[in-house]
């Protein structure tokens, strides 16, 4: 890791030239028409009583806005930050999000002014808090399978963002971050090793000393972020590199990363196993990108395997209602392949974060769950309790084309016929299993249907018919609000459900939803955020960002006026100690006063309605909300709910 060793000579040199320029301008002013006129006026003896010369006509005209100031001389015609923006643009990054800060003023100016058209690909997104900025990038990446950029302001911005970085890291989500560093401005905003503050939970960082290194560092930060195990990366860029003229610098050619795949022999073995099995099964965990999901579907269809999915746990997994997804016609599977999850005969899973942590957690902080091979998606969405084969450490998504090619090569016409017959049986069985499970689930959702406060099940049930024929994304974790989507909704797109927070940290739902809505905006998609009340109160300013950028996002408050899980914890603890169980509400409830979320939203310019306590009024409100979101007008509905 490079430390910031560069002296400020360059910058001082720049300041010196700027001062020289200013002196030259001052000299020039002596002979300017205004100065001349002023001298003439003074010569005429026109002064105020205090001896101050009276303003000239020209000055008065300029003060009134009737005269343009002289054209400024452009000292910097090709700032380094223009090339930084070009580098980001070439990577296909759609958005850069930041809360403003002086340490990246050069970069921000380039983002908004450089290029034709400026401020497009990436577009500059305004955040009201760095924690929101990084979580927006977190939500965006989960929806799109690729990173956006978060720009942070020096030491203070990085520390504001720290929680979100940790959460994205734990979630194995790619986020590219740039932090500005201005060693000559405010001492408290700079540090010798700025990235060190978050090194234990970023995958890679750099503090380049030259512009050429900086451009390469941005490219590498992108590659490191998207390569398993995916994680946030950070490049610290000095304000000097951003601002200095760089007439001869060029954006280096981009080299995409190499993904580790299984070898050809292993691909052949897996293909043979799937083809020769009478009843193969493919368990699909969380892949990297939508393309990986497409490949998983292609493989399952080629071999007629029933599949399991992690689509009700998070993004980038097998479509839940694909005809092959489900237990299938026969649950005695004789060959099971795991893709980013366990499989009885073969399992391909990317590297865990443990390796990175062991190299980068230099202070031996030892974050729970990250050092023991956990802390990642591997293992989620697994395969019905099967004993797993030792996993091959490779990227399942990148390995899929090899397996598919092998299957295509090995398949005989007879086998193809057999596979089609098997797939048809699976299709019928999976359909029946789905309808049976859904019927059972729906029966349970009747409970408290007409009750007030409103049941969380009714929120999800009423929402589903309103969005089921649209392109939608449920961006908020649903665990605290009953997880009803997992039973009632159909998660068929890679981004249908974005899953949990990563590290279980609160303050995630709203900003992640805004990030998902950034992804949705240009794709005719709407984002549903069923927002727990405690979570929203961490950084509600993100609602303003949604309004400002006209994002297609509906927020439905799961307003139970408490942190109910913690309420239960304290209640239990008081019971163990045999005292004061009628006091467990202290510190765990949000009442006296109740928070008015529609007023909060209105303060940020967001339309909405509520609080709704009558369940009969819910559906119409949700309909209005969905319509508003489709128009790109974020909307909030405050619903007073049952605790869970």
């Amino acid at each position, binding site marked *: 890791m490079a430390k910031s060793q560069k002296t400020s000579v360059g910058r001082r040199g720049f300041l010196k030239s700027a001062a020289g320029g200013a002196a030259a301008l001052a000299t020039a002013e002596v002979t300017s028409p205004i100065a001349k006129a002023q001298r003439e006026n003074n010569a005429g003896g026109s002064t105020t009583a205090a001896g101050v010369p009276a303003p000239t006509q020209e000055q008065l005209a300029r003060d009134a806005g009737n005269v343009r100031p002289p054209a400024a001389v452009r000292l910097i015609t090709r700032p380094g930050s223009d090339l930084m923006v070009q580098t980001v643009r070439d990577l296909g990054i759609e958005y850069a999000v930041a809360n403003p800060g002086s340490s990246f003023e050069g970069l921000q100016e380039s983002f908004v002014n450089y290029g034709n058209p400026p401020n497009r690909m990436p577009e500059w997104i305004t955040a009201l808090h760095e924690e929101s900025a990084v979580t927006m990038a977190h939500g965006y990446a989960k929806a799109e399978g690729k990173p956006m950029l978060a720009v942070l302001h020096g030491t203070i911005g990085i520390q504001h963002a720290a929680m979100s970085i940790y959460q994205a890291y734990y979630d194995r989500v790619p986020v590219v971050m740039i932090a500005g560093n201005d060693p000559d401005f405010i001492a408290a905003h700079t540090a010798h090793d700025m990235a060190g503050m978050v090194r234990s939970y970023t995958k890679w960082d750099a503090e380049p000393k030259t512009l050429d290194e900086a451009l390469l560092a941005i490219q590498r930060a992108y590659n490191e972020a998207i390569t398993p195990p995916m994680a946030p990366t950070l490049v610290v860029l000095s304000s000097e590199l951003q601002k200095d003229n760089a007439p001869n610098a060029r954006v280096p050619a981009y080299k995409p990363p190499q993904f580790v795949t299984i070898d050809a022999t292993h691909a052949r073995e897996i293909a043979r196993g799937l083809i020769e099995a009478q009843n193969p099964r493919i368990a699909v965990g969380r892949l990297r990108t939508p393309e990986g999901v497409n490949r998983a579907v292609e493989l399952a269809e080629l071999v007629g395997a029933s599949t399991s999915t992690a689509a009700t746990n998070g993004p980038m997994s097998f479509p839940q209602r694909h005809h092959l997804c489900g237990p299938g016609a026969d649950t005695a599977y004789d060959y099971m392949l795991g893709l980013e999850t366990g499989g009885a005969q073969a399992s391909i899973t990317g590297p865990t974060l443990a390796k990175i942590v062991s190299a980068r957690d230099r202070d031996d902080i030892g974050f729970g769950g990250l050092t023991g091979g956990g802390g990642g998606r591997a293992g989620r969405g697994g395969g019905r309790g099967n004993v797993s084969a030792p996993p091959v450490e490779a990227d399942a998504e990148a390995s899929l084309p090899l397996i598919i090619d092998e299957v295509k090569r090995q398949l005989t016409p007879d086998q193809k016929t057999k596979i089609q017959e098997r797939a048809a049986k699976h299709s019928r069985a999976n*359909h029946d299993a789905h309808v049976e499970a859904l019927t059972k689930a729906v029966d349970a959702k009747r409970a408290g249907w007409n009750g007030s406060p409103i049941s969380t099940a009714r929120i999800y049930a009423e929402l589903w*018919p309103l969005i089921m024929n649209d392109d939608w994304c449920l961006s908020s974790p649903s665990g605290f609000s009953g997880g009803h989507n997992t039973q009632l909704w159909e998660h068929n797109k890679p981004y249908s459900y974005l899953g949990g927070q990563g590290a279980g940290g609160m303050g995630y739902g709203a900003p992640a939803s805004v990030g998902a809505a950034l992804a949705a905006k240009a794709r005719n998609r709407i984002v549903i955020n069923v927002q727990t009340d405690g979570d929203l109160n961490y950084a509600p300013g993100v609602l303003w960002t949604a309004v400002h950028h006209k994002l297609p996002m509906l927020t439905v408050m799961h307003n139970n006026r408490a942190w109910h899980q913690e309420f239960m914890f304290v209640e239990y603890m008081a019971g163990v100690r045999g005292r004061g*169980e009628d006091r467990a509400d202290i510190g765990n409830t949000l009442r006296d006063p109740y928070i008015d979320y529609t007023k909060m939203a209105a303060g940020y310019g967001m339309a909405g309605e509520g609080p709704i306590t009558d369940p009969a009024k819910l559906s119409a409100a949700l309909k209005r909300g969905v319509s508003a979101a489709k128009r790109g007008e974020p909307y909030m509905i405050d619903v007073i709910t049952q605790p869970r």
Partner: protein
Amino acid sequence: MNKNSNRRRFAVGLFATAVALYAQGGGRGAAGIGHTPPPTSPVTGNAANGKALYYSYGCYACHGYNGETGARAFVGNWGNLGTEERFLAFLRGRANVAPIPPSTSMPNFGESSLPDKPAKDIYAYIRTFKSTAPELKDIPTLNAIVESAKQEKQTGR
């Protein structure tokens, strides 16, 4: 590693598992509404007092505002609540259960925290609870969800 850290790690593991199960919707609601008929045994407490106690003792946090929603619905599953005596025994039944991980299980309510009288008042109140669940045929939204699933063609992407 000392004993405490082992214990803590185990506890955190259990907690994580519990959270994961909960997050996946495990253990709640999916099995359908219970159909145990409401008890008819005698009630001695004061339901009006019990209502206030039901809230102040946080019962609603797990059992919902009328015992039929939330993480631990009991309307239709009256097993431990069949009689006042069984309810009291159930309240006092876990005095020796003190798991290390945070728990959302039924807490113990010892006499020192919830004496018999208010406990009986709570019982009187929850005995007023009745299932309000409409028949499925009377909920068009839920019907439509099932019908839609029955008729749909599965996606092939």
